[in-house]
């Protein structure tokens, strides 16, 4: 195993990686921007190196500064967490070139996943069901219109080089196609520097279901069962759970097996190793591949709590060349877990709400795990994304997990900034959530104030 590792991230995920690494006997190096100097993740690491000023491009995205910090401290490996440089194949290659292990998938696999249109083609050839759509990026609105007729309306214009929902436009019929295509291309050009647009069938109210993947460098690939992350706002997940209510009490057994088979096939098609996630949409009794994420997922704790897998620990073992010692048969779900992303934002309008955490008292208890980037007295600055913590709640059954979550959310005291805790309380109190009737537009229809 590595003697010393560098964590190229901040906040809750940097703390989580630090804890696992220290438990495994590794020495840890934190890196930080000027805005984060006093946060717990910096203090808890064995060493800390300043990267630069607050803007991400000068700090957490500054590849030269990250590599220099690793060299200076003698770190043998870099764990990128999620976001920032985690899905950057060029950074992974730069690490390798300098003799530093990148704790993630092989760069070639990352490159195969990067272009979403190419990724669709690759997995479809491996027999994975994909959302009906265009086979390649489309040169202009005219060819898009012809493709849209073939796919069937409504269609979604998507940026091949994009993510996070940026540039996505819906066209309900031929009259709306040209405008949607141009809007999507314009947004893609300004956000990603390229305008490649492809089309997919648009599902009005799908569920978002994903499968955890774990693979080693010796050809073993297993899945770690599914998670459901349908509750979203602005295409960002808000509540996640394992397992999906779709499969509770043995429902849809055939579809569940098809989902797992498709996920493993997709991972193998990409030549994947380490921890990753294959994302699917569910609509009309079918599952469709959307993309594979080449990194640890924000919501990995719900899988850890219900399967006992230590995903971060396995990331280090796999990166160090160890063989995956878990077989597919050994991966079993016990109980149910819910994760609530605690955002520093207005719980109704979703406006950002940075500021001083005058009071920050999370709930405690046997059924509660809190992954937090902050403690009371810290300042949440406007520089990075609004997620300050993740509240993860376990129960023997989904019903028990919901009851435990209601108690935990009630006991979670935050003052000084606004958070979405009241939104989470409305979600767990809603009938639709209790019945597991979830879809990606849940918040437009339920849990209203």
């Amino acid at each position, binding site marked *: 195993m590595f003697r010393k590792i560098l964590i190229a991230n901040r906040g809750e995920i940097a703390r989580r990686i630090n804890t696992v690494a220290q438990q495994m006997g590794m020495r840890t190096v934190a890196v930080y921007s000027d805005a984060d100097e006093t946060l717990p993740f910096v203090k808890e690491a064995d060493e800390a190196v300043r990267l630069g000023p607050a803007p991400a491009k000068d700090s957490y995205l500054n590849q030269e500064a990250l590599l220099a910090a690793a060299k200076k401290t003698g770190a043998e490996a870099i764990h990128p967490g999620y976001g920032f440089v985690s899905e950057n194949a060029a950074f992974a290659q730069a690490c390798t070139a300098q003799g530093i292990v990148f704790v993630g998938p092989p760069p070639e696999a990352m490159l195969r996943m990067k272009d979403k249109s190419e990724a669709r083609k690759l997995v479809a050839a491996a027999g994975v069901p994909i959302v009906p759509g265009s086979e390649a990026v489309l040169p202009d609105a005219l060819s898009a219109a012809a493709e849209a007729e073939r796919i069937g309306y409504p269609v979604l214009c998507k940026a091949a080089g994009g993510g996070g929902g940026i540039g996505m436009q819906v066209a309900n019929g031929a009259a709306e196609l040209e405008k949607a295509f141009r809007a999507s291309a314009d947004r893609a050009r300004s956000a990603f520097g390229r305008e490649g647009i492809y089309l997919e069938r648009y599902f009005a109210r799908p569920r978002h279901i994903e499968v955890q993947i774990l693979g080693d460098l010796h050809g073993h690939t297993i899945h770690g069962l599914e998670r459901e992350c349908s509750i979203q706002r602005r295409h960002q997940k808000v509540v996640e759970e394992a397992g999906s209510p779709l499969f509770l009490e043995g429902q849809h057994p055939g579809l569940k097996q098809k989902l797992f088979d498709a996920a493993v096939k997709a991972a193998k098609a990409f030549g994947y190793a380490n921890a990753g996630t294959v994302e699917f949409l569910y609509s009309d009794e079918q599952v469709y591949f959307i993309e594979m994420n080449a990194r640890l997922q924000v919501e990995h704790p719900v899988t850890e709590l219900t399967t006992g897998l230590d995903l971060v620990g396995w990331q280090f073992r796999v990166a160090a060349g160890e063989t995956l010692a878990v077989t597919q048969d050994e991966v079993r779900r016990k109980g149910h877990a819910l994760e609530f992303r605690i955002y*520093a*934002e207005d719980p109704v309008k979703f*406006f*950002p*709400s*940075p*500021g001083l955490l005058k009071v920050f008292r999370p709930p405690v208890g046997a059924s509660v795990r809190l992954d937090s980037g902050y403690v009371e007295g810290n300042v949440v600055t*406007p*520089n*990075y*994304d*609004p997620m300050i913590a993740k509240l993860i709640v376990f129960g023997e059954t989904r019903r028990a997990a919901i009851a435990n979550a209601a108690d935990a959310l009630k006991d979670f005291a935050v003052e000084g900034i606004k958070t979405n805790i009241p939104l989470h309380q409305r979600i767990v109190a809603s009938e639709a959530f209790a019945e597991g009737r979830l879809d990606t537009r849940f918040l437009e229809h339920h849990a209203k104030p």
Partner: protein
Amino acid sequence: MADVTAHITGTVWKIECKVGQQVNAGDTLVILESMKMEMPVEAADGGVVKEIRCKEAQSVAEGDVLVVLG
């Protein structure tokens, strides 16, 4: 005269108006950036831009006056 204030704490990403410009209710005057989100600040009423009290890349707090309309 009407003060247009920041509705969130963040940084000024873009200024979308000029002194002397006639604006209508709902026009975007300034775009703020906070926590990886772009948040437009719009004119509540129409008027003429009398003064711009912020600069691009400047940090602002909720309630700070950004633009004065007359």
